[in-house]
């Protein structure tokens, strides 16, 4: 996973590059929460372009970060949802809470 913080916009972009399952999500979550607490962003974007696999662990991950963002007064956004990643998020209802953008 790569992340980049843009100070002017208080924006952090997480580019997730791993498969997301119950095993890998623990490390992904730790890294994300560390970066969020370090930069205190106002906007958090998750880029799924390089996620080749995701199961329900991804839903838990995003709902958990949504709750954290709410506490910190930040906005969440998901980008580049394709294939089964998109299907899984649609099914779970998280897309009713969190806006989606492309690229």
């Amino acid at each position, binding site marked *: 996973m790569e992340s980049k913080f843009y100070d002017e916009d208080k924006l952090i972009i997480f580019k997730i590059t791993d*498969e997301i*399952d*119950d*095993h*890998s*999500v623990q490390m992904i*979550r730790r890294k994300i929460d560390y970066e969020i607490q370090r930069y205190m962003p106002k906007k958090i974007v998750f880029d799924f372009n390089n996620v080749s*696999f*995701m*199961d*329900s*662990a991804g*839903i*838990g*991950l995003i*709902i*958990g970060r949504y709750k954290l963002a709410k506490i910190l007064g930040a906005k969440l956004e998901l980008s580049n949802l394709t*294939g*089964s990643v998109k299907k*899984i998020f649609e*099914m*779970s209802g998280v897309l009713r809470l969190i806006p989606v953008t492309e690229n």
Partner: protein
Amino acid sequence: MKENFTNEMKIEFISKSSNEAFARIAVAAFASQLDPTIEELADIKTAVSEAVTNCIIHGYDKKQGIVKIVSKLKENEILIEISDKGKGIKNIEEAKEPLYTTKPNLERSGMGFTIMESFMDKMEIESIVGLGTKITMSKTIKPKLENEDEDFKMILKD
């Protein structure tokens, strides 16, 4: 009742979360004999990942046990059975409800069974409290369009 399966495989592994990727990749490799599309293969991988994860985190919890997968092919259908000898499910109907989870504090979303049901054609749960749980799923791999052969004929012509 005699079933004519054309191929069959079985794997067993200990309930470590690092085996989740191994399990779904192994079943996907077996399923690829039916020439599935990328999307069909992704559906199978996701369903297997859900069932195996459930055996590990719910069935065995923090204890160690064996997860067993049996998969069979029949014409253009794949059958997958995933089982544990863990704690079992008290109320199967309740467990199947979307968003029902007994582990919300671990950021589980309660969508595992819903995903298995929608990504596969059939999904059945058998469970006995104290003895374990077995998930049986199947999916028919759609025959590829004849157009593809037509394209080939054009290329192969004289």
